[in-house]
């Protein structure tokens, strides 16, 4: 459905997207993931013919984005970031207008609009002025606009940006349902969204693709050590030493002490599950415990991990640009930290 070859976009003195190549197959739901300013929107804008690439090209549904720009645009439903809409129009009026300029006839546009409004749960508010709508409704109008002419491909730029948790859950369901009929490329920096809806994730950072795989495989590839939490009744000192003696335990930290209870964070070798040995130890020592759990790695860990790697280590397939490696590694560390902070806040 999409075939991007060496797409590059240079702004004055800055390369926003650097020789990006990827493919999206028919029927896939692909998540385009990356920190802010990674080049996600720029890439999507090139695919939707809003911006021209400085180098490279792409085909969408078999049509070249330069040669057959109109044909490409006919087949793509695009929802731009922040969903710009005309505030002085009513919802149905706006959608009718959009359906008509996308080539639907007078009659066909009526059916298409009411169908799109049904899908996006807009029935009943069709006469409202867009200027009076809440963010959540505006997003739905934007989505209804994107799918009104039943395009083969939906490109959604941060569709859940600024929604409340309940609305995010609803739109996730909606995107999953839409995936049955459309190929979807969705950009986001909200990881839980990708983990639950997308079959494949493309991680982009500083204009380079850093990984492209299913969320499960990305998590599996994670080289992070395991982590186990144990909460027991007793005092820190003898217990800590005994836990550290177990084979495979690398480090034991104390999370908190509350009254008689102590909570340990145990870092282990990634390939060894120490929980059974821990349980044996607890039995031997006759400790009372109220928690023994291993913390599962999430896509978030994979994301942070991938961004922390130096660009050339992460993707041997992409040519390493002339970067000062030390510099960029230090910088990407910073970025990943910032990103993980904002991620915990947003998820």
């Amino acid at each position: 459905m999409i075939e991007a070859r060496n797409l590059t976009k240079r702004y004055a003195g800055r390369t926003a997207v650097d020789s990006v190549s990827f493919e999206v197959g028919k029927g896939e739901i692909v998540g385009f993931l990356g920190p802010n300013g990674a080049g996600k929107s720029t890439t999507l804008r090139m695919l939707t013919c809003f911006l021209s690439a400085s180098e490279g090209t792409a085909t969408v549904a078999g049509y070249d984005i330069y040669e057959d720009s109109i044909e490409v645009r006919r087949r793509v439903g695009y929802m731009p970031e922040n969903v710009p809409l005309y505030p002085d129009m009513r919802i149905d009026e706006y959608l009718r207008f959009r359906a008509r300029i996308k080539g639907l006839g007078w009659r066909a546009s009526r059916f298409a609009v009411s169908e799109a409004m049904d899908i996006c749960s807009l029935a009943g508010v069709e006469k409202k002025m867009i200027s009076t709508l809440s963010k959540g409704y505006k997003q739905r109008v934007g989505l209804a606009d994107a799918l009104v002419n039943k395009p083969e491909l939906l490109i959604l730029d941060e569709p859940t940006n600024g929604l409340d948790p309940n609305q995010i859950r609803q739109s996730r369901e909606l995107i999953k349902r839409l995936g049955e009929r459309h190929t979807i490329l969705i950009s986001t920096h909200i990881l839980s969204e990708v983990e639950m809806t997308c079959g494949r994730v493309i991680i982009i950072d500083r204009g380079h693709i850093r990984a492209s795989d299913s969320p499960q495989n990305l998590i599996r590839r994670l080289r992070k050590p395991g982590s186990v939490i144990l909460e027991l009744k007793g005092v820190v000192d003898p217990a800590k030493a005994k836990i550290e003696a177990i084979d495979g335990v690398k480090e034991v930290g104390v999370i908190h002490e509350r009254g008689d209870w102590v909570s340990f964070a145990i870092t282990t070798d990634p390939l060894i599950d120490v929980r059974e040995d821990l349980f044996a130890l607890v039995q031997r020592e006759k400790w009372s415990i109220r928690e023994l759990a291993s913390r599962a790695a999430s896509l978030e860990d994979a994301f942070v991990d991938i961004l922390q790697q130096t660009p050339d280590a992460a993707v041997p397939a992409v040519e390493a640009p002339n970067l000062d490696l030390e510099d960029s590694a230090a910088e990407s560390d910073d970025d990943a930290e910032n990103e993980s902070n904002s991620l915990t806040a947003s998820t």
Partner: protein
Amino acid sequence: MRAFFILFGKELRSFFLSPLAYVVMALFTFLNGWLFISMVKAMQLQVSARSLIYNLFSSGWFWMGYFILFPLITMRLFAEERKMGTIEGLLTAPVRTAEVVLAKYAATVVVYLVIVAPVFLFFPLFQAVTGEGAAFHSGAVWGSAMGLILVGLFNVAIGTLASALTTNQLIAAMLTFVFVMLHYFLGFLQNFGMVPGSAWTAGMAYFSTTEHIQSLSEGLIDSRPVIYYLSFSAVLLAFTHLVIESRKWRV
């Protein structure tokens, strides 16, 4: 072409559904009406060899209103779309940039014509009220109508280009204001200390609004100003198209 008519309809609607159109129309008609009356009064006091139409359209006062009118009706065309980001939805829909530019331009020209049309009610009204014979001939009416249409085509094209150049409506309005005014005042360079009769001033005067409108309002239809206004409007629109397209290549 289909997309052109849909976009044209949408532009017209959004003009006439906003209060701006009516405020401008009311004020403009009031201003012109007041000028018309002053012109009649002036002609009562002093015998004039020229017709009422000629005196009205060659008066600087009449054109003052136009300096404000064109910026007001053109400033939002592209600047607003770019500011709000709706241009992204517009240019990623399967429509040609040329259709977008022409639809916006044509809709604004129609708005302009609706706003200035009442001026032409003044003349028959004047005759009906006074019961006088014709103080002017019909050729003068048609000629000056044509002049106003040509001036509109040209100046709306200036405004369209200015609006495509910036995301700020105020800057677009200022640009239009300055260029509409400059174009008008080219005819008065000789009043600003330049040697009258020199090739330079004569050349400049040829570009000026007043120069053309005077011959037209005497009922003399000259093909030169017609070609001049139409070709310049086309060039300005071609520039607008270029500016919008070049956004894609932004570096």
